[in-house]
């Protein structure tokens, strides 16, 4: 009964059918396709934000409580210790808040985005869209919390008399740098988590390590010995946080070393991440 439909054999293959077949394993990410789905990115990001604060009493204020609590804990801790790991000219609270705002942006992006494929299994197995939409949306959704953190930071800076200088115009650059670092890591982790469930447990652990090896509650210039700094600069988040702190407060100087090392590293992580993601993207629906 191998009756193949022969009826249409006479029709010449037409030119404007778009053909799909098994893809080459390694391919560059298709940006035009991604751009076509930009509305989906925005709507999914909005969904994440709405769902996060629905059915909570204080709603978005939760975005304040986390960094505030951390801030208080570390202020008390270093107060007891009698010494704060920041430059003398900088109030500890302002320095730490700068770090925490960026840290919150980074850690929420990474943890949200790295789970984004697994959390949206129902979408991945039922509809087509570039899978990169999911980690992107997760990262985008975190910006709302970041805005709240920024407002808190502004209040703290004013009350401690730290006024921004012209350096503040570089803030978007460092925010973007943080987002890209988060994205680079999250793309790797989201793909790996979709394929190997082990990575669900790895992410919180990695974040905890990252918190202490990044200048969140301390300043690189105040704590890390000069001889170690080139090695320390290998942490791409170090440049972003140091830079952000400099941009907000205008104190210290542009962290040339850390940023200079960060950017090529970031480019490497992002491009390999995108390649890997693209490679395994094809099998998500079968394996997730």
């Amino acid at each position, binding site marked *: 009964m191998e009756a193949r439909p022969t009826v249409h054999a006479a029709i010449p293959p037409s030119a404007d059918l778009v053909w*799909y077949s098994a893809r080459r394993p390694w391919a560059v990410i298709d940006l035009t396709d991604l751009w076509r789905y930009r*509305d989906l990115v925005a709507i999914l990001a909005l*969904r994440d934000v709405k769902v996060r604060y629905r059915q909570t009493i204080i709603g978005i204020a939760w975005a304040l409580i986390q960094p505030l609590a951390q801030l208080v804990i570390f202020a008390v801790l270093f107060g007891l210790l009698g010494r704060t790991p920041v430059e003398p000219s900088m109030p500890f609270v302002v320095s730490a808040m700068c770090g925490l705002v960026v840290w919150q942006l980074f850690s929420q992006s990474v943890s949200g985005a790295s789970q984004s494929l697994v959390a949206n299994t129902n979408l*991945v197995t*039922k509809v087509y869209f570039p899978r990169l939409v999911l980690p992107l949306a997760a990262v985008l959704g975190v910006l709302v919390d970041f805005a709240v953190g920024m407002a808190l930071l502004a209040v703290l800076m004013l009350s401690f008399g730290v006024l921004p200088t012209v350096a503040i115009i570089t803030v978007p650059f460092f925010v973007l740098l943080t987002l890209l670092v988060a994205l680079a890591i999250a793309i790797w982790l989201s793909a790996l988590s979709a394929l190997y469930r082990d990575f669900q447990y790895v992410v919180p652990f990695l974040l905890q390590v990252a918190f202490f090896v990044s200048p969140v509650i301390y300043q690189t210039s105040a704590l890390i010995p000069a001889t170690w700094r080139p090695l320390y600069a290998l942490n791409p988040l170090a440049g972003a946080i140091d830079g952000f702190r400099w941009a907000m407060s205008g104190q210290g100087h542009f962290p040339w070393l850390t940023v200079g090392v960060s950017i090529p590293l970031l480019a490497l992580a992002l491009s390999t991440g995108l390649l890997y993601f693209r490679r395994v993207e094809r099998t998500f629906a079968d394996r997730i």
Partner: protein
Amino acid sequence: MTRPAVRVESLSKCYRIGSREPYHRFSELLLRWGRRAIIAPREWMHRARLGAVPNGNPHDPASNHFWALKDVSFEVHEGEVLGIVGRNGAGKSTLLKILARITEPTAGRFGLRGRVASLLEVGTGFHPELTGRDNIYLNGAVLGMTRKEIHRKFDEIVAFAETERFLETPVKHYSSGMHMRLAFAVAAHLEPEILIVDEVLAVGDPEFQKKCIGRMGEVARSGRTVLLVSHDLNSIATLADRCILLHAGKLLSADNTATVLNTYAESLHRSEDTVYEDAKSQNSPKVIFAAVETSSPGNLHLYGRPLRVRLEIATPRALANARVSFQFVNARGTPVAHLWTFDSDRPMLRSAGHHRLVCTIDSPRLYMGRYTLNVYFGETVLRDICPFEVSMREMPRELPWQPDTCAYLEDASWEIHDVPTDSLEGAHGSKHYYNEAIITTK
């Protein structure tokens, strides 16, 4: 002649048996890498001799691979509705998933003309915590609409779903019917050139179903192409212009709907599981055999002929108050008849051993279509067993029989009187028609 909107060429998809996920854990992957480092050089040499063969040779029947789809080719023209039929595991869903670009084929290729929207599930992406309004945007975007498009059609969608009053209510408070209506309303307002639909019409209340089927018809008439999978052959018969039949991943036939559905019905009835069989149990009484004895071989039943249902029950002990019943369930999943026998009606199963229960329906009135049995015995229910089909083949009438006209036919008599205009009492010249009479004259 219209152009093809979908063209499928030698499409194949290979899965690994056992798990869809070959390596759950990273540790297993590490182990595999280790093993590979040892084996790989040998394998490469082997492969170099044989030519390139995919990893874990799927051509080797002994290997743990199976082809969900094998060398399938067909075409669908613009404005055509293609029904895809086949049994469970025939590869229908795999085919749709490939065409919807959710998963990639292992080999072969397919061409699509224009935008594609897939509806493999109603309400994909719905979030229970969000309001109806939010979910319309969310679901629309997931299905490939832009925000502008959704905005433009928003009122229409809401009107179609009939949920205006609950637009600001979280969807988790919706009844399942409302949920379904809202979800389908969004899907119904997609405007892709190609629409891929899986089994979604089988849900929802009949009234709304009708609305959806109507809408699907409209979609097709407006020049869009629809690919439709459904177990409900009646809706396929109503909607599809042409059908393809898949069996075990292969294309068995591609033809006009009636021909393919016939082939399918025949192939269905040739299969073994038209009867139900189970092993005896030492501990509990159970149904060990069930069969519908139809008028024609292959579980095909011609309307009006006697139908027999045979159940065999083995019990390790005598039963008091045994009850056995069964339902005929139509293709939409609706039970249309319920028949039973209780110990209180006629003593039965009062001794240990093997018992046979035969229920004869002299003149069943089940309307054309596919049916299965649900058998109830004790605490157990056997669902969807003994598929059979009722055919009107022997019952010609002036108008062709349409599927889904009704659930059953009733015997009735008609009296036709000529009423003289000057007298209202005259019963002269009356003619008697009996449905049965019409049906049996052939």
